[in-house]
């Protein structure tokens, strides 16, 4: 079990720590826990984790600050935990380098799914990124700039393709409005969420079976979007 992924949980609530530790250990992960930001940073520096699960409400320092400090030296995936109605903090943490978020209270399956996505991502970050993304009947070939449903080619405009390519390359991860806008459009357009709304709608109409109930391009209310590829 020396190869078991190392997960660092930084959360001041002991009940949550206990629950996450029990379940993740059961699933074969190596878990270490910290009760405040400083302890978390020290533990991370001593033994670089594969995934960090970070609560935003820590007693000693702001969770966003912990994110920033971790990002100064490691690219390991960070999943943040927060309570409902703190979209602003979540977005801040995501923009400071966190990879994903979970709202408390959460189901453990959700947590496991996020941890798996995170580990896969950190793996693909080290190797060569996949050139072809499959999502249900959709095939997105990032090298050839082609999008197909089954064998049928889907025609996208240049902006639509750029948007889809960015989503697909980061599939499974939550992408904030700001990060999409500044990567697909221009950092100067980071406030124009209306672009996103309109282009996402176009894209869903072309890709989704039912654009009102999307299966691939999911809205993360108040945060951004997430592209899902079914496993």
């Amino acid at each position, binding site marked *: 079990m020396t190869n078991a992924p190392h997960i660092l949980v930084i959360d001041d609530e002991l009940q949550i720590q206990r629950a996450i530790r029990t379940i993740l250990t059961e699933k074969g992960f190596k878990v270490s826990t910290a009760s405040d930001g400083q302890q978390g940073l020290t533990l991370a520096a001593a033994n670089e984790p594969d995934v960090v699960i970070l609560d935003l409400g820590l007693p000693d320092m702001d969770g966003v600050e912990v994110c920033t400090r971790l990002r100064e030296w490691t690219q390991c995936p960070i999943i943040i935990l927060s309570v409902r109605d703190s*979209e602003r903090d979540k977005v801040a943490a995501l923009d400071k380098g966190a990879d994903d978020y979970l709202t408390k209270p959460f189901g453990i399956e959700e947590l496991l799914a996020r941890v798996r996505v995170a580990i896969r991502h950190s793996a693909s970050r080290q190797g060569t990124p996949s050139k072809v993304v499959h999502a249900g009947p959709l095939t997105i070939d990032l090298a050839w700039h082609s999008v197909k449903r089954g064998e049928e080619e889907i025609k996208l405009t240049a902006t639509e393709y750029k948007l889809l390519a960015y989503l697909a390359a980061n599939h499974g991860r939550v992408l904030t409005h700001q990060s999409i806008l500044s990567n697909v459009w221009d950092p100067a357009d980071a406030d124009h969420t209306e672009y996103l*709304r*309109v282009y996402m709608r176009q894209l869903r109409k072309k890709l989704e079976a039912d654009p009102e109930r999307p299966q691939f391009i999911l*809205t993360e209310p*108040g945060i951004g979007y997430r592209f899902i590829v079914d496993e």
Partner: protein
Amino acid sequence: MRSATLFSRSSQYFLAVGLIALVTVILFTLREALDTTLIALLYLIPLGMITAYWGLGPGITSALITFLTFNYFFIQPYYNLAVHRPTDVVILVIFLIVAIVISQLVGRMQASLAAATAREREATQLYELSTALAGLHDGHTIAVILAKQVQDVSQGEAVELNITGTEPFVFRLPESSQPDRPPEWILPIQVARGLLGEIRLWRAAPVLTSNEKRLLQTFASQGALALERARLAQAESRARVLEESDRLKSAILSSVSHELRTPLSTIKAAASSLRSNEVSWDTAARSELVAQIDDEADHLNMLVGNLLDMSRIESGVLKPKREWNILAEIVGSVLARMKHLAGEHHIEVDIPESLPLVPVDYVQMEQVFTNLVSNSVKYAPEKTVIRVSAFVEGDSIHATVSNQGPQVPQEHLERIFDKFFRITEADRVTGTGLGLSICKGIIEAHGGRLWAENVPDGLAFNFTFPLIWEGVSPPKLPIDPEAE
């Protein structure tokens, strides 16, 4: 101002003497034709006029001068002040008495008339002040008006109003400059409870008369009453808010204890059953118990969320984070999430593709639709239709969630948005009784309005909210992708 009064006063004497001289000349020319008694009577006419127009001083002076001229010119022997005939002595004495009495009477009447006019002016000024102060509940406005009226009445160089207490406030007239000497007069603004502040008045000359001081003191006490009233009104509204929030708190407590205990009991029962060694559960029963725990935990989470939202709305910190959104997308995501709850109802959506982008908080608007649809699901019978629609109405969006559930009595249509208001008995339907009030709070925070109405086959929730956000209309974007 003072020299002008002086001039006019001395000119009054001058005119009085002139008039007497004129009358003397006229009477002198007619001396032979007129009887001494008649002349004496005729002399009384200018005397009366002088006192009436110019006051007691010129009147008495004229009376004395007239006494001399009458004696000198009209009583024999002429051109000296000696009197020979006894009747003439009587005439002279009576003339003097009558002249002085008339002067005094007329003069007193004059003075009391002037006093009456002054009193009337004071009354008018006081009336103006109390009218201006009536109904004011703001200490600053009261202070400003009081200072202006004091300035109007006193015609002083400067007035400063200094309000002390919890919210100190200073107002100066004129606002720009202030004499750099101590004020001539300081008037306390005082109520029974204590000192509320003071009025400082700069007026070097003329020195304030006792009448002016009295009037200004009345002003100060009027101002004090108005300030006191404003403070009481504030205290009262604070007390009312406290009372209201107190009422809310006890309502929350009673609702919370009832609503939170139900899912907690279920969770406790299921969890302790699973731990118990006395029963060995088969797989189906076990997963049923676990599902119950899971569902009830979600329910608890929703209740706590609602309570938090309500307290946020109540304390006014619910600020929508507005962005341009597609309403159809919001409704779509709500309905997708509610699929398992609304399984037995037909949900129809009628939102035109051409609907412009709407400036709303995505999460909050989701909650509005979630609460309205779940309310419809709760009360409308199964197999009926729940309809969600939206259209543009002028500069607003008009959205409707209607169901074929029971109608609400007219008198309750407003009250269903009240916190914890239920038409049916609390035990029949689960929820916090906060869903609709939260919707109302959110829509109002968006500058809109939410109301319910009975429609022929059920109940409809309507709401409108403005399409214009910070003066900007919905952005127009290339809808045709090939137009890029």
